[in-house]
């Protein structure tokens, strides 16, 4: 089993990766910090599991080389579990990439990162309902303080592929 960290640039994937694996990947406050993938390991139920920090990408149609690396990574790791890291304060466009990944049939789990920023901006997200609609785990996180990371780890096994039809049905007319 492998875990891919995918998401837009600058949403905190590398912070997440460092927390999960104890690595020292560079984290900075600008999009495009990570331009190559890094592999690391974390222990889950006494097993070593490979985790991959991927460059940020806005969609699965790459527009630069760093995004190409990300999209290629996703294509190569056909049976990976994808942790979609979303900037909760920009949830709508984050869902765009997430839906694209779901449509490709990957098992997905969503981390609503930057939950603190979303709170500051008075954005309220009904996490329970979002889980029900998307049929995958959705967990608010603050990667820099570590909040929610444990829950993400413990729910990774709940990640599963979802049919887009179901999501359309769940959300209703």
């Amino acid at each position: 089993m492998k875990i891919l960290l995918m998401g837009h640039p600058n949403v905190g994937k590398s912070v997440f990766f460092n927390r999960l694996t104890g690595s020292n990947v560079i984290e900075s406050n600008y999009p495009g910090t990570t331009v190559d993938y890094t592999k690391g390991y974390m222990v889950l139920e006494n097993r070593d599991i490979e985790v991959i920090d991927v460059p940020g990408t806005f969609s699965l149609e790459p527009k630069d080389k760093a995004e190409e690396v990300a999209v290629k990574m996703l294509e190569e790791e056909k049976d990976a579990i994808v942790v979609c890291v979303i900037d909760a304060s920009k949830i709508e466009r984050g869902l765009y990439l997430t839906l694209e990944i779901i449509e490709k049939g990957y098992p997905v789990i969503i981390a609503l990162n930057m939950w603190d920023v979303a709170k500051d901006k008075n954005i309220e997200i009904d996490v329970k309902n979002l889980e029900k609609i998307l049929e995958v785990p959705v967990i608010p996180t603050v990667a820099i303080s570590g909040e929610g990371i444990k829950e993400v780890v413990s729910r990774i096994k709940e990640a599963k592929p979802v049919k887009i039809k179901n999501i359309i049905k769940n959300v209703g007319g």
Partner: protein
Amino acid sequence: MDKKLSEMRYGEEGVVKSIEGDLRNKVAGMGIRVGKKIKMITKQPIKGPVVVLVDEYRTSLGLGIADKIIIEVRK
């Protein structure tokens, strides 16, 4: 009134009305799409890029890109 995004003035707000062909793909992931509210923050001189506000976050687009986005200006 319709305008190109590149022609909007400081502080003007509007809704995206259309985006030219192949650009749609490119900006879709960034949250810029038909029907989205957009506000002009600043334009750089000498054909420099524009900075716009979409959903309370800021994105910068080159003038050539902004030329291909039509906005229905509100204010």
